[in-house]
Structure formats: C-alpha cells, structure tokens
C-alpha cells in the first residue's frame, strides 16, 4: 500500500503522458489528464496523512537496498509540498483547458498535455527522490517539459525568451551534474541519507566548496539574486497558465532541493551568514525590480524573485522556527503566486494588454476578477487575515528569537519588502481595477495601438462562455485555497513545525532509507 502511494505520483503521470501521445481525440485527452491529476492529488493527500501519523516512508524500487538501488522517500515536507503542488497543477490544467491554450492549434494541443504531465512527473519525482542523481533526473524531466511548454506556439519573442531560459537551465543542470560527480568522487555515494555523515568526515575546505557549488546550482534554478536575471525575462512571455504553473512550482522545487540538501548534507548549528546576505539581496532587488515594471506579468515575476528571499530567510536561520516559517511560506507562496498569475491572466484577457499604463485607459474588468486578484495580492503582501501573514509572522518570530545582526537585518528587510510588495500590488490595483478620475469615460478613448489579431475578442460563442467560466472557476479555486491555507493555519503550522523538526533531526529519515550497518 505504501509502495503504491509513494510511486503513484511519479508513475501515473508519466504513463499517461505516453497515452496522450497516441492520438486520442482531444476531449478524451482532456478528461484523462484531469482524472490523472485528481488521482495524484488524492494520493498525495493520503501520503501526507500517512507520513504525518507514522513518520517518513520509503520504497526501494525493484527491491534493491538503498545505496545500490533507487529509493523514493516521503516525509512530511515532501508530502505537504507534493499535495499543494499537484493541487496547483490541477487548477492550472483546468484553466488552460478553459482558455483553450491547449487547443488553439492542433499541433500545440498534441504537445501540451504530454509535456504538462511530464512536468508533473518531474515535480513529483523531485519531491520524493532519495538520492542526488535522481534529483538531477527529476530536474531534467521537469525542465525538459518546461522547455517545450515555454516555447509552445513559438513566435519570435517566445523563441528568444525560451532560448535564454533553456540555455541558463542547461548550464545549471550541467553544473549540478559536476557537483554530483565531485561528491561521488569524494564520498563514494549519492544517496542523500548516506551523504551527511560522509561529507562531515571530509576536510572543511572541500565540503565548503561543494556546498557553495550546490548553492550556485540551486541558486540559478531558484532564481536567487544575483542569479535571477533569466526569470523575469522568460516567464512572462509564455502562455498565461504556463507562466502560472512555472512561477508556482519550478523555483519552489529548487528551494525544496536546497532545503533538503542543506539540512541533510551540510547541517550547521548557527546562522548561515552567506545565505542571509543572499536572502536580503534577493528580497530587495526583486521588489525594487517589481516597482520599476510597467508590464503586469513582469511585475509579478519580479515579486516572485523577491519572495524567494523569504524562503531563504528561514533556511539561513537554520533553526526549527525558521524552517517552519520556510515550509509555511513555500505552501502559501505556491498557492498565492499561481492565483495571482491566473487572476492577472483574466485581467489581461479583459483589457487585452499587459501594460499597466494602457490598462489604466481601458475599462476595468468585472468586480469578481478584481476580488480574485485582490485576495491573493493582499495575501502576498502579508495583510493579517490572509495566509501570507501567518508565514511571515513565523519567520519574523524566528528572526526575533534568534537575535544577532544577521537575523535582525533579515527581519527588517522582510518587513520593508512586505510594505513595498503592498505598494506594488496597489499600483496594479489602481491601474487595472480602478476607474481613473482623469478618464471619466475611458472606454471611449481609442486604444493607442491596435490589439494583436489573436487577442481581438470575437463575438462570444457558447464554447467561449464555457471556457471563460472554467477559467474563472479555476482561479476562484486557487484563491479559495489560499484563503483555506489561512483558515487552517493552526493545523498547517503544526504540520510545518513537525516537518521542520524532521529536517533538523534526520535520524528518522536515515533509518527508513538505510539499514543499520550501512549508516
């Protein structure tokens, strides 16, 4: 039963990705993808309950014991993130089906569903894998799928952005492989559970260099300043639902990998000053970048970079409260960022432009869309009743308890960044959703430029209305999930706390992976 629970999130999507390539009718493929993701979601939720009640679970694939064979491990952290991630992928899939991105052209539809399911496979494998090399393979699966998705229906702009994205990701992947080679040469193993003690035996300089290389590799993938330049340049060009799922998941998978490897491989007992500096830089540079943007998707991409810094905040403190904050922040941010990008897509669909200044001259979207944008926006800024507040409060409390220059600097930067996030969000709000005083009847104002032919709104057909309803529903589900994260903050915080303790004390993790004499 455990075997089935742990392997299903990896095996089912990849099998169905194969099935969707067989040339079935579009309707069958859409139903199949949705069913698969729903099944995986139920499975992930069951896994979360199982790991929370009985501790970490592992599967030795093919019956080979740990250092030799492939091991899949699920603990609270991975099960929690898996559940949230699959929920997001499901909502975004429904949104994409509604928008018709998947079906705009026959060739694009053929590619979208297999690539999307492969992306889910990669994300699941990254969360569940128990060794470094499989982590690399998981990253390659999800990145290869993302290369295809980001260049879907590629025009000139998308090709340029896709090229940047592909090359940067490939470079980081090769560096990751280099890291694996070096680690294997130094320790003779790639199993995460076995590496911790062996790396501790190495000379300080060597293990320090390895830790830095790993930080650089995952820093590129997670878009940590100063390695973030590719993200705001490439994400906004992709189709809206794909941007949403990338923003929600890809960087977070890298942050998860950072969390997992740093706690298992390079555990430390005090504040990690280097990461604290990087976190501060990430928060500040990201949010200042967001303030300078005029394009709603670029603005949101920059806030994404900025809020990666919050996740590093908790990891830099390296204590139970800090890690709890990081876990909570990741859960909150996955949901909220996806909801924001989806709501932005609904707004762009109405105003037919992504530029904020041009939005100010168009009529604002329906109030429902405004609400769907406002709730996650307030949550992102950390306004009290919403999910961001809970996560930020935990982080700030961790910073205050830890004390010391680095912790206080982190806490202060986090507060300022939250304030600036609120400013950035209110800027979007006032441009996109408020009726401007200076343009009393701005719907009469002629648009500066004729909209591109494919964004011209055709007369609403029944299928269009159905699609629009699906899109709104998917966004509403994401927004409601973010509200639910806030409502369930108590139980969630307790799970997060247990997950953080599990990270800091990896004995249970090691004992399910390795037999006694191998450790």
């Amino acid at each position: 039963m455990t075997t089935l629970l742990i392997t299903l999130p990896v095996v089912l999507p990849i099998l169905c990705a194969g099935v969707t390539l067989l040339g079935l009718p579009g309707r069958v493929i859409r139903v199949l993808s949705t069913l698969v993701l729903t099944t995986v979601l139920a499975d992930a939720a069951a896994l979360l309950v199982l790991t929370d009640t009985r501790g970490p679970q592992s599967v030795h694939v093919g019956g080979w014991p740990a250092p030799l064979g492939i091991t899949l491990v699920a603990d609270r952290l991975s099960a929690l993130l898996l559940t949230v991630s699959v929920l997001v992928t499901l909502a975004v899939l429904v949104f994409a089906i509604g928008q018709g991105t998947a079906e705009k052209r026959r060739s694009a539809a053929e590619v979208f569903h297999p690539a999307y399911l492969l992306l889910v496979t990669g994300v699941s494998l990254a969360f569940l894998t128990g060794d470094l090399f499989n982590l690399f393979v998981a990253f390659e699966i999800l990145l290869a799928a993302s290369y295809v998705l980001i260049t879907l229906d590629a025009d000139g702009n998308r090709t340029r952005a896709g090229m940047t994205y592909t090359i940067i990701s490939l470079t980081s992947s090769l560096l990751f492989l280099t890291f694996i080679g070096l680690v294997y040469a130094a320790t003779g193993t790639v199993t995460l559970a076995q590496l911790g003690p062996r790396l501790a035996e190495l000379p300080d300089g060597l293990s320090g260099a390895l830790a830095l290389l790993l930080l650089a590799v995952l820093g590129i993938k997670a878009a940590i300043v100063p390695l973030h330049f590719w993200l705001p340049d490439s994400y906004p060009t992709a189709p809206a639902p794909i941007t949403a799922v990338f923003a929600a998941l890809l960087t977070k998978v890298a942050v998860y990998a950072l969390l997992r490897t740093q706690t298992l491989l390079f555990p430390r007992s005090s504040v990690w000053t280097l990461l604290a500096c990087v976190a501060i830089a990430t928060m500040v540079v990201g949010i200042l970048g967001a303030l300078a943007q005029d394009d709603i998707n670029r603005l949101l991409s920059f806030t994404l970079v900025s809020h990666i810094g919050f996740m590093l905040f908790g990891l830099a403190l390296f204590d139970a409260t800090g890690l709890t904050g990081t876990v909570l922040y990741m859960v909150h941010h996955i949901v909220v960022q996806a909801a924001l990008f989806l709501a932005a897509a609904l707004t762009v669909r109405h105003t037919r432009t992504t530029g904020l200044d041009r939005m100010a001259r168009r009529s604002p979207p329906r109030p429902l869309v405004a609400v769907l944008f406002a709730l996650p926006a307030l949550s992102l800024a950390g306004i009290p009743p919403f999910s961001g507040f809970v996560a930020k409060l935990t982080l700030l409390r961790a910073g205050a308890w830890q004390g010391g220059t680095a912790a206080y600097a982190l806490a202060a930067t986090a507060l300022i960044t939250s304030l600036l996030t609120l400013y950035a969000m209110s800027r979007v709000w006032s441009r996109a959703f408020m009726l401007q005083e200076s343009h009393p009847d701005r719907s009469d104002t002629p648009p500066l430029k004729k909209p591109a032919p494919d964004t011209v709104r055709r007369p609403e057909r029944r299928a269009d209305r159905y699609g629009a309803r699906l899109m709104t529903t998917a966004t509403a589900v994401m927004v409601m999930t973010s509200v639910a994260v806030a409502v369930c903050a108590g139980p969630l915080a307790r799970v997060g706390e247990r997950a953080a303790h599990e990270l800091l004390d990896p004995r249970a993790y090691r004992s399910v992976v390795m037999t006694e004499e191998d450790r």
Partner: protein
Amino acid sequence: MTGAVDITVNTLDVTMAVVVGGLFAIGFHLMLQRSLMRIVLGFILLGHGTNMLLLVAGGTPGLPPVLEGRPVDPAEPADPLPQAMALTSIIITFGLTAFLMALAYRSWRLSGSDEVRDDVEDRRIDIALQRAGADEVTGPPEGPGGNGPDDGPGSGPGDGSEPGGEGDGDAPDHRDDDDTAPGDHR
C-alpha cells in the same frame, strides 16, 4: 563502491583532469558568445566534460562489472555506478542538444540571424537613455519607466543617429530587424 573514497583521492589521472578542465574552459568560453550555434557547441563540449568527470569520479579502471560464472574479488571490477550515471547524462544531453538545435533553427527562421538578441528590458532602457540624451538639450530627461507607446519589442524609434550609440562596429547588420543596434553596449 564504498571503497571508492581511498582509490579516487589517491590516484587522479592527470590526463583526464586536463581533458576535463580543458573541455569545461572551452565549453564555457563558447557559451559566452553571441552566436547561437557557438552556444550549442559550447553546451555539447560542456556536456562531454561533465560526462568525463563522472567517469573519472568512478576511480581506477577495472574489469567489466558484469561477469559470467567465475567469482571475482570485489576490488577487481570497475565501479559501475558512475558509468550508469554517465550513460543517463549522455542520453539527457543528447536529447536536449537536439531540442536546442531545433530552437536555434527556429530562431534563425524567425529573426534571420544566428545571434542572441538583446532582451526587451535592455532595449527599453537603451531607448529611454537615448531619449534622455536627446531631451537634455530642450528639457528635463524622461525616467527609464517612461510611459511611451513603445513598450513592445521592435516598435520604438529606429533612428541610428542618436548620440547614445557607441557604434561597436562588429556585424551590426545582423540586428537590422530591431532597434538595438545604436545603443548596443555589449
């Protein structure tokens, strides 16, 4: 495989070290070029370097790991794990190289040039700088977040005679399809 610690640290093949180092150096150098084809070649070389590194990580050479019949001393065969890893990574780099080539071809078909183009933001900053330079004669400069109608790529002024241009001379004809040539500072 648990014995790999002693073997690899003691006997590192200098030839392999030089080859791996050389491949990395050339690979990264090529990846820093502007031509897409060179970037692809750089990626291929870098992939080779990484695969060699994985093989070197396996320690000293030995017998084939899979032997029929006769019992062998566990120290005799080569470590099979790095070979498996290298094989996996060869497959992955091969597939991604094919994708990268296709993308480079697509880019060449669409833009007519083999060069990585300036990103949108750089171009907008360039345009804003040029405007600021032009406005200094008449009035206060416009900020870089200027709300002109030209925030789409390729819709800005295509003037090549602005004072902001440094005129870097090397192959400006490749960027004739957009407005980046005058302010191109790379």
